[in-house]
Structures are given as structure tokens and as C-alpha cells.
């Protein structure tokens, strides 16, 4: 990396449902909060990047924020929209193009599971007609096999969701703010076996913005910042098992998360054991379990012991999804990846309030994963 890049401002519009406020307006809200946090003006920004999946283009925000002629790149990169925006803003500073940049993500989805058109994915009509083209099925199929191979119990699936709602109750930007007990989670209506209703996140709304600055600017402003030590974004390798797959190569190949994680650790020059707080993609309970191993935090099967002992609780040895993750915050796709980084920034600055990780965390790890098989990891340090 040519120059150190820091996050000096972080803003969020509460996730969930906000009637009468567009996705983009939620993005503008987050961006204004991030600017105020950084103590700078919109006119100081030299580059912006952002986007949404279902709530329009980000660059229209200049109408609300000011026509300063800055370069503004729209991102439409599925679940990696936030990660891509962060990458672009980071690179603008690292390359010396400017001293201050912003990354913004927002969204506003309809209620209910995402539905997809086979032709948009190069798939035949019968695949959709016969009811096999559902993202929720993919998650269930992946964790079902994983549970059988590695001895993960249904109770552990329940504990993931229970932790998410417990953490969400402590978090002012979360959507689900009430704890749910494990019996309720396990006995809720089944969506796709083994996953019940409470084990899935829901499409939602929200916005997140981050202000990035060069080392020079950070010093000049005397900012309360965190340093970005690595960002790694990888698409799927040959033979990886992903959503909407009428067939899979045998034997299956690698995983985009493993590739992104290894690259991020290598870039940052640290190991999983050095991480103090982690935000891992938890589209559903099984995803958090599998992503703990795919990101190198434990071996396959050890998650049973982790959840039995509470090691990923806020007070545990590696707190995971401290704001309740996607399960408690919902998933506005364009904003979700940046929410994870926002949460790490607040944790490292000691500003996470009731959900603050104890013992002064120094290293934050975030991981977003999505269709059609991509993964982005960011490591921030203090």
C-alpha cells in the first residue's frame, strides 16, 4: 500500500423500516453524520463512491449535499457494493489522488425473500418454475451438509440467532431490538430445513457512510481515526458452491471467502488470533458458523464449543457480530457491508456504548459475502 489510509468519520441511518424516507435520503443522512463526525465539510471531499441495489444511483446525492464538481463513482456490485465503494475510496487516497474521500451505501428493499429471474442469471426457465431458484435454499443446503460433516447441532444454529438478537437489543442502529429466547428460535416455523424463521435475516432499509483520509490529513485534523490495514475483494474460484447452481463440479473447488480472508491477513501482516472484534456475514445462522471457519478463526466443527462457551459473545475471546449482524439489523444490501466496517470503527474508537467490547480492542475484522459468489474483507486497526 502506497500510503496509510484512515477512517476519520462514520455515519449510519438506523436499519429497519423507515416509511416515507427513500433509501438515498437515508444515505444522505448517514453521509452528513459521517462528515460531522470527521469535522469536515462536503466541499472538502475529493472523491466519492457509493451505491445501492434497489434504491437508485448514489451520485444524485450531490443535489442534497452540494454541487462541488467532485468525481463520484456509482457502484452496482451486488452484495459487495459497500466493499467496492470502500475499495475505490481507499485507492483514491492511497494513490495520492486526494486527501479525503467518502464511501456510502444505502438501500430500501421490498418485504419478503428476494426473488430472481432465471434469465438474468443465464439459467433455464424450468429451474425457477420447479422452485429450486431460491437464495434461502442455498443457505440451508450449505449448512445442512456442513452440520452433518462437522457435527454442528441445531442448538448451535439457535445460539447464533439468540446472540444476534441479544446484541441487537443493545444497539441503536439495529432493527430487531428485543432478545428472543432459544426455544422460540428453534420452535419457530421452518423456512428451509434446518433453518427456521428467526435464523434468517430480512431485506431491510438503511444507509452507512465512511469518511477516509490520508495520514497527512488525519494529523492535520487531529482526527479520532482508525487505520485501514487491508481490503481484499475476491470473486468465486473454479468449482465453488454458490447460490443458483443446478449443478456443482465434483469434487467442489475453493471458496471466495477463504481467498479474500487469506489475502487480507497477508496484506495486514497479522493472524486470525490477533483480531479483537469481528463482523462476519450472517445472512442466516449457518453462514456465521461456516464463515468463522472460512475466515480462519476456528477449525471446522469447533463452532460447537465456541457457542457452548460463549467465546463469540461481546465479552468473549473474539466477539462476533457485536451489533447483531444481518440477523438483527436486516440486510439493505448496498449498506450492509459498510455497516460491518462502521461497527468496527465505533468499537475501536470505544464509542459502541452498551455493546462496547471490553479491553480496548485494537484490531477489527469485517467480512461480507454475497451472490453470485463474492467476498470482501477489511481489517482496521487502532
Amino acid at each position, binding site marked *: 500500500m502506497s500510503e496509510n489510509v484512515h477512517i476519520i468519520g462514520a455515519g449510519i441511518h438506523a436499519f429497519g423500516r423507515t416509511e416515507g424516507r427513500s433509501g438515498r435520503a437515508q444515505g444522505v443522512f448517514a453521509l452528513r453524520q459521517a462528515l460531522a463526525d470527521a469535522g469536515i465539510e462536503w466541499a472538502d471531499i475529493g472523491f466519492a463512491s457509493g451505491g445501492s441495489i434497489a434504491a437508485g444511483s448514489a451520485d444524485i446525492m450531490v443535489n442534497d449535499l452540494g454541487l462541488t464538481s467532485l468525481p463520484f463513482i456509482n457502484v452496482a456490485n451486488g452484495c459487495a457494493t459497500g466493499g467496492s465503494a470502500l475499495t475505490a475510496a481507499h485507492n483514491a487516497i492511497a494513490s495520492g489522488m486526494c486527501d479525503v474521500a467518502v464511501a456510502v451505501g444505502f438501500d430500501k428493499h421490498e418485504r419478503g425473500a428476494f426473488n430472481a429471474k432465471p434469465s438474468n442469471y443465464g439459467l433455464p426457465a*424450468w429451474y425457477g418454475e420447479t422452485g429450486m431458484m431460491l437464495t434461502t435454499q442455498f443457505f*440451508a443446503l450449505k449448512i445442512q451438509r456442513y452440520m*452433518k460433516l462437522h457435527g454442528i447441532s441445531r442448538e448451535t444454529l439457535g445460539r447464533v440467532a439468540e446472540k444476534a438478537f441479544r446484541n441487537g437489543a443493545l444497539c441503536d442502529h439495529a432493527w430487531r431490538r428485543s432478545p428472543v429466547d432459544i426455544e422460540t428460535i428453534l420452535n419457530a416455523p421452518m423456512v*428451509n*430445513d434446518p433453518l427456521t424463521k428467526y435464523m434468517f435475516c430480512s431485506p431491510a432499509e438503511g444507509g452507512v457512510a465512511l469518511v477516509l483520509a490520508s495520514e497527512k490529513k488525519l494529523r492535520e485534523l487531529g482526527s479520532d481515526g482508525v487505520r485501514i490495514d487491508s481490503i481484499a475483494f475476491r470473486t468465486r474460484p473454479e468449482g465453488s458452491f454458490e447460490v443458483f447452481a443446478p449443478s456443482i*463440479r465434483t469434487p467442489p473447488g475453493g471458496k471466495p471467502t477463504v481467498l479474500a480472508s487469506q489475502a487480507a491477513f497477508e496484506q495486514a501482516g497479522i493472524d486470525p488470533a490477533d483480531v479483537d472484534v469481528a463482523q462476519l456475514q450472517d445472512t442466516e445462522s449457518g453462514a456465521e458458523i461456516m464463515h468463522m471457519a472460512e475466515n480462519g478463526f476456528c477449525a471446522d466443527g469447533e463452532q460447537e464449543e465456541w457457542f457452548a462457551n460463549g467465546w463469540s459473545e461481546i465479552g468473549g475471546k473474539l466477539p462476533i457480530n457485536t451489533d447483531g449482524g444481518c440477523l438483527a439489523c436486516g440486510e439493505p444490501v448496498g449498506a450492509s457491508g459498510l455497516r460491518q466496517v462502521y461497527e468496527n470503527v465505533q468499537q475501536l474508537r470505544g464509542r459502541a456504548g452498551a455493546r462496547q467490547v471490553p479491553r480496548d480492542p485494537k484490531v477489527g475484522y469485517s467480512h461480507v459475502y454475497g451472490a453470485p459468489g463474492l467476498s470482501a474483507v477489511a481489517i482496521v486497526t487502532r
Partner: protein
Amino acid sequence: MDNAQGLSPIAAGLWDDGPPPRLIGGRKANGEIVFPLPDEPLEPLERVALATSGTLWSWTSQEFQPKSPFAGPEPFEPFLLGYIELANEVIVESRIVETSIDRLELGMPMQLVIVPFDDHRSTFAFRPEQRA
């Protein structure tokens, strides 16, 4: 198992009728097999009739009625689906029939069947292998 007789396949070219019926895949130059055979292959594919039996790789249930483009009969009946590994060929996604979720196990032998999808159409599925 000829309760699907007289129905039209849900798509042409998905399987050969047999007997026994066999799914149709495509073999790439490097030996890898894909299913289904794409309408517009981007590379030359050799048409290959796949094995009629395999082992269960994973499974789940579909408990809620999917939105469009799902076109199953009304009223909606929950169903099972999963992946079946055809040894040295490919792992295919399929409906699973003639069993219940608590009887499914990783690696259990499964065999291909053609079943009714609605009043007019048939589709492919796998069921636990029935030992003679």
C-alpha cells in the same frame, strides 16, 4: 414408476426417456461435466447421458410457497430438494421424492425418477434407492 407417462417434460432435452430415464449433461474439453446442457454453450460440449443413481450430497425442504417464477400446482405443498452426487460426473440439484426429511442421510444411495410436476408436465427427481 410410470405415473408421469403421458405428461410433457417441463423442458426439452433435460433427460432421455430410456428406459431407464437419464439426465443429459455436457462434457467440457477438460472432462468436467455440467448439468443441464446449456441452450447456448459458450464452448463445445459433448452430450452425455448421466448416471441414473448417485449419493445424497445435501438436502433441505421448501416450506413456504416461492414467489414467481415458481409455477407449481395450487394449493402449494411443501417439498424436498437437494444435491445428488453422480460419482465422477457431477453433483446435480433435484427434487427429492418418496421419502421424508428425517429419513435422509449424507451419502445415502439415490436413484433418478421422472415424476408429475403438475397436471400436464413431468420433471426429474431422485428418491432413495429401493433395494431389490
